[in-house]
Each structure stands twice: as C-alpha cells, then as structure tokens.
C-alpha cells in the first residue's frame, strides 16, 4: 500500500509540475507534450519511456487497489456487528474518506484518460494539440466541476496517505509529531492548488 502509494504520489507531483507549463503558452506546453513522447527515445524508441511509466503506474494502481480491498474486507470481517451509537472520535475527514475517495479518483482517472490522453470525450480531441484540448475542455463549467471534485478527493487522499505511508514504512522519527502532519498538509494543499490552477485559469480566461 505504502510503496505503490509513493510511486503514484511521485507521479502525481511530477504531473502537477508539468501541467504548470501551460502558463508559459501554447508553444511551450505542446513542445513539453512532444518531449514526453520523445524522452529516452535513443534507448527505448519513440514513447518507450512513456509506455514504461504507464505500465508501472497501471501495475501500481492495481496493487494499490488490491491492498485497499483486502484491508476493507478484513475490516468488515473484524467487526461484523457495528456500534448502535458511534460518533467519529479523532480520525480526520481525510482518514475516513480514503476508500470512497480512492474510488472517486479511480473513476476520474478513466475519464481523464478518455478526455485528454485519447481525446474521445474532449470537445477538441486532437492528440497532437494538447494546449487546445485543455483550453477547449476547461471552458465547459461541468468539466471544471468534475476536475475540482476529483482533485479535492486527491488532495484529501494524499493528506492522509503520505503521512500514513511513512508510518507503514516504519519511519519512526519522520512520521512522529506535528511536523509530519504539517508537511503532509502542506504537500496536499500545494498539490491541490497546483492542479486546480490550470482549469480555473482557463475558465476565467487567464490562459487562452
């Protein structure tokens, strides 16, 4: 859970940083997209590195989901008869929404790939013109809404996930105390803000 979570986390951070290229204009963004396909082509051929990353991510997601389902099934088996009266005590909102938040993120990723990778659900939908795909999509308010819900779910997921994964990996010092919580919170907020900056910049006409 922790290992696959960290693989996905590092990808999500890199993806967010890459998205910010859109603020440098159409040429910069499109050439960045071409570079993603071309990187490492001397060794693995055109899109070779890209496909390697995709396969690693897919395997990570599947293992991550398998572990989550196993945990949920064990949790259900460990408490067949629930409490009649039970308010939440300490666990934060992020910790309580890990499972359903994960489901939202998984559904979103499918939509996201169909929207901006394959282009089927995109109003522009030309894979070679990512800048126009992004800007035409985010001019629709409902597309921005879908992205907002998903990114907020991702932020909450990362908020609990990063901190929890540090504990699962047995880092006693790093995961102890208020510093670890603060770092996880700052990382989650920065990630959320970075991702949401793109659709809202397009929606409000800051990127055209």
């Amino acid at each position, binding site marked *: 859970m922790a290992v696959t979570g960290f693989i996905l986390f590092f990808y999500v951070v890199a993806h967010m940083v890459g998205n910010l290229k859109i603020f440098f204009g159409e040429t910069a963004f499109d050439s960045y997209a071409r570079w993603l396909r071309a990187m490492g082509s001397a060794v693995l051929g055109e899109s070779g590195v890209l496909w390697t990353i995709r396969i690693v991510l897919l395997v990570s997601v599947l293992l991550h989901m398998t572990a989550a389902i196993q945990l949920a099934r064990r949790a259900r088996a460990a408490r067949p008869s629930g409490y009649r009266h039970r308010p939440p005590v300490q666990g934060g909102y992020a910790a309580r929404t890990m499972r359903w938040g994960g489901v939202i993120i998984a559904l979103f990723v499918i939509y996201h790939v169909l929207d901006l990778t394959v282009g089927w659900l995109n109003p522009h939908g030309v894979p070679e013109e990512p800048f126009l795909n992004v800007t035409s999509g985010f001019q629709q308010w409902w597309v921005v809404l879908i992205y907002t819900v998903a990114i907020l779910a991702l932020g909450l997921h990362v908020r609990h996930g990063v901190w929890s994964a540090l504990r699962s990996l*047995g880092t006693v010092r790093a995961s102890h105390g208020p510093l670890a919580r603060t770092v996880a919170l700052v990382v989650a907020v920065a990630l959320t803000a970075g991702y949401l900056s793109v659709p809202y910049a397009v929606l409000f006409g800051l990127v055209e």
Partner: protein
Amino acid sequence: MRFTVRVWRQTGSEDAGRLVEYDVDDVSPDMSFLEMLDVLNERLTLRGEEPVAFDHDCREGICGMCGLTINGVAHGPRRATTTCQLHMREFTDGDTIVVEPWRAAPFPVVRDLVVDRGALDEVVRAGGYVSVSTGSAPEAHATPVARADADKAFESAACIGCGACVAACPNGSAMLFTAAKVTHLGRLPQGAPERDTRALDMLAAHDEAGFGGCTNTGECTAVCPKGIPLADIAQFNQDVLRASLRGAGGRPA
C-alpha cells in the same frame, strides 16, 4: 444526578442482543461510572431482574479489566482514563448514556457488556516474552539500559491490554496493542534476542486472530487510557520490515 442509561443486554453468544433503557437516579457526581452501574444492578436485583454483567477488577485504572463503549467512545469522554476512573461529574444531569461492549469479531460477547479478550493473549503468547535464565535474580547493574530506552520502553509497557484500541479502530485492528508489546520488549537489551521473530510472530498471530489491518486512522491512541502513541505502530512496522529483510524465520515448530 439522574441519568437515562441505555445498556446493551445479551444473554449469551447465541443471543442477538439489544439496548435496554433504565432510569438511574440518586447518582452522586463523585461516583465512578462502574459505581453508577453498581447502583443500577442493586436496584435490578431488588426488583428481581438480572443485573447487568460487566468486567472490572482493580478499579484503580491499572488492571485492564474494565472497558465499556460509552456514547460510542471506548472508556468514555475523558481522555487517558479507564472506565473505572471515569466519574459521573463528566456527564450532565439528565443525560442519556449509551453503553455498549467492545465490538470486534475476535472479542465475542460473553454476556451483556462482558467480552472475551482471549485473542490478545494469543498475540502475547506468540512473542510477548523475553528469554531469561531462571534461578537467582540477576545483579541489578549486570545489564545497563540507557535512560532514553528505559523511558520509551516504560511508556509502551504502560499498556494494560484493555482492548480499547480494538474497540475504537474502524478496522477492528489490534495494532496499537501489539505494537506496544513489540516496542516495549524490543527496546530493552533483555528483549533484543527475539526482536525479529517477535515482530513477525506477533503480527502473524494478530492477523490469525481475525483483527483487521491498520490504516493509521489514529482512533486507537485517542481513546487509549495509557496514551500509547501511534509512533509505536511505526516502530512495529520498522521491526517487521527489518526482520523480513533479514529473512528472520517464524516460530520454531
């Protein structure tokens, strides 16, 4: 003070169980929660009804026998306090209080509020011990222990095994309990020889007993009457990972 107490009544493991409402008046704010139940039971006995069964022993907060889920919170509203040390002044006159047993598959209800916590004994049996030479007591200074290690081990050794961590965990996991034992013993030189096998064996016994997996929600440490920190679980994970990497074997057959 006067309370409406809704208590879980269950005649045995076969019975489905139900919440039954009782009015308890003439309660002193200085009574402990268990003494309030004693008052209720006296009146039930006088009326010829079956008293409410609940576990208790020392009533000093150190034995780990008592443990009730009060208004959905293990050991009730006061932090770092066992049920026996919780006083009725923590409640408001006229309150309705819901009292339920610990709920977890490895803790079957014996009767009313009494659950069988034998599953925790199985976890301890798997590795909660140190190898000592029998005979005369060793010389006190023969094994020096650094102050920091002694303090940390003592913090974890404060666990009284009441099971509140399991009761509070949304996953029904006993990781805080198991982690406290592993951290307590592994931190001391006396417990070092079995450190690897202890972590692996106790984790295996924990899972085998039917407890759920830990997802670091932190509900356990919030209700722990002895304040065992969540960091013990990180220490436990570290011991398990290290032992797995070293290829430490499990229990000898």
